[in-house]
């Protein structure tokens, strides 16, 4: 039996004429201890998908099953790391993490709880900043706190909603490694949502592209059979990595163009030519 299972899940937003189906017929199975990455365009319904799994949203049709039971609401068992950190700006690092620990371990003594908070903050190397407010931290440090907050409740599963997409490339690389190191310790089931194919390949066991919405569905899955621990620099010369990366990229570009051509067909463009001397260039962006 799969650890988490989505059966024919659909989700719509809005009412009447404005009703749009964001996710349609999603089927997904994740085994215990597996690290799955879902890659997709912005606005393709990735966050909706993770909210359905975390229990913040309920599906209109279909079922979300966690350890064989229906998900009826958020729970400590599934820790969520949000894209925008969602730290409480009026609490310092200790209290932001402490609040989670307090709720997850109600019976624990205050001393043990404090110890736990400090251990987890230590794990992401933020001990010197434990008394600081979120506004005094950099983006990378904030996301570390957010990671700590999710992990300190010792969830059975970690859900990450584009956790690193707001960070600069260097910080991003460091944090990818840090999250991987933490994950390596107890290999908890993890679901990563990202718009970065490289990040997915570096971190996950399996990559599933999400076709862009409305009516987003999951595309064909790609297994990542690269040995762990993976080194980002070394990966760049690995043939398997290149093959896999190109495969996923090609698929994404293909569905991206489908979406673009679908959109364009609705517009009648005026028959004029731009007076631009610089040759036009195409850019592929997933952000």
């Amino acid at each position, binding site marked *: 039996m799969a650890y988490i299972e989505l059966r024919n899940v659909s989700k719509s937003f809005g009412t009447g004429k404005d009703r749009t189906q964001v996710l349609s017929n999603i089927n997904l199975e994740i085994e215990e201890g597996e690290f799955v990455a879902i890659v997709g365009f912005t606005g393709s319904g990735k966050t909706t998908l993770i909210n359905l799994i975390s229990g913040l949203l309920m599906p209109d049709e279909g079922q979300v099953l966690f350890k064989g039971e229906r998900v009826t609401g958020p729970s400590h068992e599934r820790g969520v790391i949000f894209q*925008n950190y969602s730290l409480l700006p009026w609490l310092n690092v200790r209290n932001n993490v402490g609040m989670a620990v307090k709720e997850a371990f109600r019976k624990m003594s205050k001393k043990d709880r404090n110890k736990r908070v400090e251990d987890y903050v230590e794990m992401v190397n933020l001990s010197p900043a434990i008394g600081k407010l979120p506004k005094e931290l950099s983006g990378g440090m904030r996301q570390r706190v957010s990671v700590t*907050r999710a992990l300190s409740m010792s969830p059975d599963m970690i859900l990450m909603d584009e956790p690193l997409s707001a960070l600069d490339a260097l910080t991003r690389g460091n944090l990818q490694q840090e999250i991987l190191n933490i994950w390596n310790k107890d290999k908890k089931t993890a679901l990563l949502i990202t718009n970065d194919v490289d990040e997915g390949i570096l971190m996950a066991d399996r990559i599933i592209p999400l076709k862009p919405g409305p009516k987003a569905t999951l595309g064909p899955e790609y297994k990542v059979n690269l040995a762990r621990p993976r080194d980002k620099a070394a990966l760049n010369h690995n043939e398997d990595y290149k093959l896999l990366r190109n495969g996923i990229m090609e698929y994404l570009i293909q569905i991206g163009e489908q979406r673009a051509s679908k959109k364009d067909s609705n517009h009648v463009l005026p028959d004029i030519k731009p007076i631009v001397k610089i040759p036009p260039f195409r850019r592929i962006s997933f952000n």
Partner: protein
Amino acid sequence: MKDRSIHILNFVGLGFFEPAIRLAAGEETKKNLIALFKKVLLPVLAVGLFLILWHAGSSYLYNVEKDFKIETARIASGNSGVTTELERIETGESSINSLPSPVAVLGAFKTLLADHKEINLKKEAFALKVAPLNEKNLEFNRVNADKIKEGIAAKKKPIKYTGRPSFVDQIFTSLKTVFAGFFLALFLAVPIGVVLGLSSTLRSSFNWLIQIFKPVSPVVWFLLVYMIVKTFTLEYDGDVSFIISFIAVGLCAMWATLVNTTLGVSTVDKDYINVAKVLNLGVGQKVFKIILPSSFPLIFTGLRITVSVAWMVLIAIELLSQSPGLGTFVWEEFQNGANDSNAKIIAAMFVIGGIGFLLDKLMFTVQKFVTFTEEATT
């Protein structure tokens, strides 16, 4: 030291001293001179212009009245009448009650302070005089404690000074009333606002009532409170007018806080609510750790408005309730119609304005202490 004092000044909203301090420290002379000109010199010039206009206006009005009086005297009893009328105006026997000049107002202000000193002296003398009597009364109460309990003997009260209160006393009475009213508003509006903000059902249930009561004028609130409190205080021989006025002030001023609290609580950032849900926070934790802190900025904006409104309506309400504060002072001076009454009223007006300004700054500082800022403000 310098940066610290600048920080403190900015914190309490007196940032316009900053360029002066920086200039004294010899920093960026040109930039700070311009800043000083903008922040200090121009406001001072504006005040000066205002004083000049005021002075010109008051002397014009004075002359109009004076000419009218002389003209009336000439018609009544010819040139001899004019001379006597001029003499009477000179001695103040025939008073000209128009807009007082700035100098007259300053004079009235000094008179009021001198009067305060005089009354204080009287109070001290009175206290000395009644001290033995009061002691005797206390002794009586102690000896006859049992009888008082049984209702045989009446408890003797200490003798209090019942003379006319001074202007400064009246300021403090007004401040007492406004703070009592403010705390009433705080303890009514914030809890109700939180409850209404949390429940959309309750919010829509009470929406109509709130919309109707919100714009009711202070005078009507006073009458309404009077109708109710009068019945409850039939046998109470304390300061009923104070009770009525502070309740009326509180009820008048609480609406800004109520509406802002409701708004703040009902529009907490969805991210924070999601955090509360994902962490499975209990109701108490959710309210005190997430909802209240995130609505503090709006609640305090409401409280600031409440303080200003409370101070503004206080004068009108005191005037009606005869509670011995600034409102009563203004009204009594107006009824009094002495030579310097108008000047005293204007002096009171500036004191009222100044205190209102200080109260707002006080709230502003408190607000800065308790509310968060999302991003660093450097």
